């Protein structure tokens, strides 16, 4: 494959990755935004905060915020800033999910990959090993976009010039 063809392939893959990542976030966000009380219960289970306001804020705003980030990526608007935010959301979330899975694994003495629960990701109960692997994939895609890929078919790739 020539250098030009390889670059073209990378460009197309990057745009597809951006659309895919954006689509995943729109889907995950909408599935939570349509049933925010279910998401609220799940966030409450993580025992992240004692503040009712903070808990409500997370459950009320985060799903819609995910939808907005997804739409920005699909449209190609402020791509790198949005990709940075996705990394900042996905990394701590994956750590929190993994910590809860480890707690269940220890408590119930079952293999880590046999742990299954609704992590609040928008798809109901999931095998946690698979979910963590999926999230790592999404993080890599977001880092890929953060590194400056996926500039084609953008409304406004860079918001601040």
């Amino acid at each position, binding site marked *: 494959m020539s250098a030009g063809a390889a670059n073209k392939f990378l460009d197309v893959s990057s745009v597809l990755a951006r659309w895919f990542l954006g689509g995943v976030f729109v889907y995950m966000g909408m599935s939570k935004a349509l*049933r925010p009380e279910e998401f*609220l219960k799940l966030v409450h289970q993580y025992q992240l905060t004692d503040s*009712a306001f903070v808990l409500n804020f997370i459950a009320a*705003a985060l799903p*819609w*915020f995910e939808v907005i980030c997804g739409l920005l990526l699909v449209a190609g608007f402020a791509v790198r800033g949005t990709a940075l935010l996705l990394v900042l959301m996905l990394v701590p979330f994956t750590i929190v999910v993994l910590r809860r899975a480890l707690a269940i694994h220890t408590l119930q003495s079952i293999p880590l990959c046999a742990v299954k629960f609704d992590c609040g990701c928008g798809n109901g109960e999931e095998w946690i090993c698979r979910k963590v692997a999926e999230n790592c994939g999404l993080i890599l895609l977001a880092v890929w976009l953060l590194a400056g890929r996926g500039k084609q078919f953008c409304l406004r790739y*860079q918001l601040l010039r």
Partner: protein
Amino acid sequence: MNVQEQSQGASARQSIVGKVLGEAILVVVVGALVALAANRISPRGLSLARDYFREANAAVPPSPTQATTNVSTASTATNEAAPSETESAIARLKAKGLQVVDFDEVKKLLHDPGYQTGSIIFIDARGDEYPAGHIPGAYQLDYYHPDKYLLTVLPACQNASRIVVYCTGGDCQDSEMTALMLRDGGVPNEKLFVYSGGMTEWDDKKEPIETGARNSGQMLPTNK
């Protein structure tokens, strides 16, 4: 590469990092505002000010006069096995001073003459699931969006002598939080009962299920 070129490269990188951070901050601020507006507009939106789990966290010691049923008694049987989901739920309900009813008791209440006169009422604490199937004649009181239901439910509670609150069952806590919300709202604790088996058990036992609105008369076919 000379010093000047290196300096220009570093400066360009800093500029890109600054722009990306700036973009991210802008997206956070605008995105959070839009997200809050969307939550506000959405019919399923949450209130930021309400403490949804206040009732769940507030334990009240049970009074010695409070009735318990055979299921709750069974749960106290001594065995070394880990408590089941139902047993844990019953223990939790009792710790909050709530009375528990089991399937047989609920079935009896449904056939009690008091059910026809409104002296025994059922309250379904679920949200969207209610129209798909509920205990016949049950009032809906969505714990997370109670405002539009309270005007109907509170007078019914005042006239009733026994109020059975249920949700999905299992680890669902909406029924107990609804019961506690009603108790905080002035409904006497003696009237309030929680059916811990919930709709899942009711459905599993092939009992009659009404669909649509309350008293719609539309029943799901049972395979009894």
